């Protein structure tokens, strides 16, 4: 019996005891091939999935390393069947390769004829293929490079894409590191991407993903198309790029609902790209407008389905995806793998926090007991109205106001789902409200005022979920959410996790109505946060109110 920090479970999860002396080295050894699933205080859970194993293969690890790591760190004997399974799964990657042939263009080759025969029989694959070039190779229509990778992954034979990339139109871009410098992990992430060709970089919110993007562009030194979630985010990308790189305002174009600029570096929103008129995507020409050398996808986990389809046609261009999490609510992790590329770099939140790059956060769930009247009304509400009702009760508003008063001298962000509730809260707290209808200019003015501490309390709707930068929000109060979405939780938490000037901690409140569906949704969020390793506690609203 060895005394390793790792326990291998029969469902292919790995439990890592954090307090163990060898936990750190073990984490480094298993991170390449296992996805961190949960990271609560004592025992972290990793999961070995086929995608994770293939990611490891793509990063140059072989089955032997994986098996050695498991056996070397495992406290108990590792089931032989599991090891065999790992070796078999890993061996599936790279049996098929997409390569560039000087005569035939894109070619699918195989080191294992039986595998090639198997996939050739698939009805979905057949139309993507051209002429058979001998026993071990078959031509692929160049336009189907993305599709074939998607289908091959579904068949369980992910292809290694060695067909290379077009260089694109050259454009000089360098980082200007004046008064700041690239953090170690940012440099590593950018380099890992560049060596891999294409792929995804996983970094927590607030870890400076934009800068990784900039660093990737500095590697590519080519015209770049950046796809972001929304207009505010587009503006921020632009400002960051001007600040961090040699690019000037004239070199960066915005392609949004209002502006349609195409410049050497162009920032487009997902929304405008997926706008359809009469069933036709109007803005597809953007992809062909220039000879892009690099495509950057911000928030890959939100990438909408049409963008996937468009990306399938862009396989010859280098692609980098930036995200805080590979978990997608729609389960399309496989598409990210085959179309954007394998994971090239990741670092868990908690590690970043320990290194001081992101602020530690305290998560507090405040349970509000509804009044008898409210309870009766809740019990009688239609089922589809129930959540809205319990999420917006007056009791909740009272508690929220009390919480804001607790943090009078701090920057407080109140986040919610329902506009009525937010308007009411804004009125009571005498704070501005940012919602969907707020003009972009006005939004930016308010954000700037919040940053400058002219405003201390800001009430925001879900429009603020993505890619806005609120450096000094020390406290976030969530009053209602979208039914316990894990990904939304990650975003909201991201709002308050940016490093503070004073190095102080952040606080994240969720106000929850007791004994209602709100509490059930909150349980999901609680689990997510606790699994991310945040201190989590539950208090009664009465304690908050009594504390006044």
């Amino acid at each position, binding site marked *: 019996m060895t005394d390793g920090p790792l*326990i291998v479970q029969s*469902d292919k999860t790995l439990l890592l005891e954090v307090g163990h002396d060898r936990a750190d080295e073990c984490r480094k050894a298993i991170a390449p091939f296992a996805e961190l699933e949960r990271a609560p205080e004592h*025992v972290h859970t990793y999961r070995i999935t086929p995608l994770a194993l293939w990611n490891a293969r793509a990063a140059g690890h072989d089955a032997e390393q994986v098996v050695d790591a498991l056996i070397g760190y495992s406290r108990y*004997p*590792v089931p032989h069947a599991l090891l065999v399974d790992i070796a078999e799964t890993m061996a599936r990657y790279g049996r098929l390769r997409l390569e560039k042939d000087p005569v035939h263009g894109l070619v699918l080759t195989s080191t294992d004829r039986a595998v090639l025969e198997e996939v050739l029989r698939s009805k979905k694959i057949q139309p993507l293929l051209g002429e058979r070039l001998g026993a071990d190779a078959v031509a692929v229509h160049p336009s189907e490079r993305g599709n074939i990778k998607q289908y091959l992954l579904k068949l369980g034979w992910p292809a290694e894409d060695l067909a290379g990339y077009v260089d694109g139109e050259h454009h000089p871009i360098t980082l200007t590191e004046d008064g700041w410098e690239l953090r170690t992990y940012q440099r590593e992430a950018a380099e890992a991407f560049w060596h891999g060709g294409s792929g995804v970089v996983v970094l927590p919110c607030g870890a400076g993903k934009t800068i990784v993007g900039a660093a990737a562009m500095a590697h590519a030194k080519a015209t770049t198309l950046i796809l972001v979630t929304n207009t505010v985010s587009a503006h921020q990308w632009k400002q960051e790029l001007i600040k961090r790189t040699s690019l000037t305002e004239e070199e960066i174009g915005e392609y949004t609902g209002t502006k349609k600029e195409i410049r050497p570096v162009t920032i487009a929103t997902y929304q405008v790209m997926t706008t359809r008129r009469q069933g036709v995507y109007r803005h597809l020409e953007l992809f062909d407008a220039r000879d892009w050398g690099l495509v950057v996808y911000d928030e890959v986990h939100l990438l909408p389905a049409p963008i996937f389809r468009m990306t399938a046609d862009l396989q010859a261009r280098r692609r980098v995806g930036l995200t805080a999490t590979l978990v997608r609510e729609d389960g399309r992790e496989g598409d990210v793998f085959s179309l954007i590329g394998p994971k090239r770099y990741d670092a868990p939140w908690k590690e970043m926090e320990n290194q001081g790059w992101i602020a530690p956060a305290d998560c507090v769930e405040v349970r509000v007991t509804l009044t008898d009247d409210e309870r009766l009304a809740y019990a009688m509400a239609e089922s589809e109205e129930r959540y809205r009702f319990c999420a917006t009760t007056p009791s909740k508003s009272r508690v929220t106001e009390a919480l804001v008063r607790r943090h009078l001298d701090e920057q407080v962000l109140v986040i919610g789902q329902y506009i009525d509730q937010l308007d009411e809260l804004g009125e009571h707290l005498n704070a501005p409200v940012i919602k969907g209808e707020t003009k972009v200019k006005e939004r930016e003015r308010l954000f700037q005022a919040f940053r400058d501490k002219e405003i201390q309390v800001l009430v925001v709707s879900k429009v603020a979920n993505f890619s806005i930068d609120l450096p000094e929000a020390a406290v976030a109060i969530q009053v209602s959410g979208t039914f316990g979405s894990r990904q939304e939780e990650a975003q909201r938490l991201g709002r308050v996790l940016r490093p503070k000037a004073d190095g102080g901690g952040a606080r994240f409140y969720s106000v929850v109505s007791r004994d209602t569906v709100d509490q059930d949704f909150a349980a999901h969020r609680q689990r997510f946060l606790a699994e991310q390793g945040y201190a989590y506690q539950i208090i009664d609203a009465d304690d908050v109110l009594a504390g006044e």
Partner: protein
Amino acid sequence: MSTEFTEWLRGRSDDQLRALVAVRPELITPVPAHLEGLATRAGSPSAIGRVLDRLDLFTLSVIETLAVLPSPVAHRTLRAQMARALRGAADPAFQGALRETVERLRTLALVYGPDKALAPAPGVREVLETPAGLGPPAVEVFRHHPAERLAELAEDIGGDGDGTKETLARLLGDPEIVGRLIQDVSPQARSALNELAWGPASGRVPNARREVRTADAQSPIEELLSRALLGATGEETVVLPREVALALRGGRIHRDLSPVPPALDGAVRDQGLADRTAAGQAFAFTRAVEELCERWSVDPPGVLRSGGLAVRDLKRTSVLLDLPEWVTGLVAEVAHAAGLVAASGAVDGEWLPTPAYDGWRVKGTEDRWTVLATTWLTMDRVPGVIGERDERDRLLNALHPDLRRSAAAEVRTATLGMLAVAGPGLAPTLESVRERLAWEQPRRRGGHRDQLVEFTLREAEQIGVTGLGAVVDHGRALLPGCDRTMSAGRLLAPLLPEPLDHVLLQADLTAVAPGPLTSDLRRWLALAAEVESTGGATVYRFDERSIRRALDAGQSADEMLAMLERHSTTPVPQPLGYLVTDVARRHGRMRVGTASAYVRCDDPSLLDEVMADRRALPLRLRRLAPTVIASKTSRPTLVDSLRAMGYAPASESLDGDVIITQLDVRRTDGQPLVRSSATFNGLEADVVAAAVRAVRAGDAAHRARRAPVEAPAGQVPRSPATATIVALREAIRQGSQVWIGYLDSQGNATSRILEPARMEGGYLTAYDETRAAVHRFALHRITGIADIN
């Protein structure tokens, strides 16, 4: 029965006889009366079949050679014959091996006679129907051919046609003649002969009894038939006469023989790692059996009408246990064979744990494992065939009575025994194991044995008898004939993880047990939390439902918190404490009274009706509210009574679910459908010695009886009674023989020679040499006594 063989057997020393019956215990069950009986039994087809089945390929080849060669065979001749069959050149070890093998065959009484005249024991030739794949001799093949046909054949192959099969056989026995005949036939005919040469020696052709002459032969078969190179033994069967086959084999009887078994090959594992892996697997398997019994205690699957477990139930169980279906089948079968699970009754039975399970459950893991592993090794059931179809195309379910295979235990022992003597850490491939088994037990081959070998290897790995494919110490200790200084359990124990009495509690409401837990803590956690993943560790998750379940089971919030605190190495996370108190707060709110049962109905008038019913009086009902009646009787009684009164009540739990919360943990007394075929571990030495002694004594008596001694002529001189008694007593003391005169019951004066044994109560018990039997003689009728000389 050949007297030669009997005499040879008689001439064996006691030690040699003891060695014989020790390896062939069937010869002394029951103990035969005399050596002739022993010889007869040793020559019976079943006894010979049994012992031949145990011979390895080389030993079998020796006896086959002896059976083929005309007896007796000089050792030198045997050696020359065997040497031709060797794979490589005869190495010096071969001679020694052959000598040892012959000695072993003598010990087994399969071969007898001195080195210059060895012969197979009587009966061996008959049992070896086709020794070395050879067909019957020509005399047999052509036995039923008419004389004229025999004459024709003899003529065609260039002999004189006197029409006897012996003549034909003599002709075919001459390799030169056969060689010439083979040269004469067409290449197609020659290749047909070569097909049959190394066996099987018979083939099928239509219209086999064709009477063709060489000159008229049309086809290759006719060429062969006309030359007596093939003989018809049936309407559609032809057979290659042994003499012809031997000529084709170039005087060899076997080919590619080797006196040493083929080596096992495979990967070599680190023995320490293999031990740990096997221990981990042993732990997991034991746990799986326990888990299965626990699950079936509360929710037993039904017994199919044909016996066995429904496919659906097996699937369900395998999901519950998180194991592949074949492993679940194995777990269920072993649990059943170990008597831990059985069917509760013939009609509408259920598969339930037995009372033996409760005894097993409280033992240490290593002892529990030993029980399971031993059961597996010796059981005659084959879990591997679950899901296959039998010869009548019926699905074989788990726990089905037809899952028995008599060879199962023997194949398991043989396979593992082979692994056990392989080098340390060697994980032989399936192929090499099969090859080795084919060498060691050449007479026991066949598809289903190959399958059993495969099952054995994968099941051994699953149970933890092997680790990474190599036999481990605790597995080896189970095998018969291995070093048993340490029991399997004691070898396994140090490899098993120590049971822990603590868990790691986390804010995401999980508890991680980083190893096996003490059984108290495990039970408590199973009650208060859901198991999320198992393996080396167990991950439990607390949620509202699991906490409520614990509260339902009578735990209070304070008790639960105290339990958590006691068994956690870190402080109890605030959200977990909050959850427990929060659920307990609400749980308490729902509790309304202590009535043992209640009737709830939305329609008050229906309850009015029940209250008014006279038959409801013994139920002691009380109306709590217009829609609720409480009762002092138990819920089942209440439900039954209400049903008897014509209502249709449904049971409901405290939570209002229509479920029975108080699940009965049940047991059955049913017997397992299994017979443990005890592997033969050799007879005790004293049993063997006693048996030999008894046979010897019986034999001495038997032989004496065969030759009754003639009493001397003339009358025995009369002697006084006192002198008679003194003389008899003296004879008993010295064990000598006396000559007496005796009046038999008819009053005739007879003369006997006796070997007196005992004298008491006026009678003499003595062996009567003249009658060759033990008799009692009345002292007063003895007329006189004299010295035999």
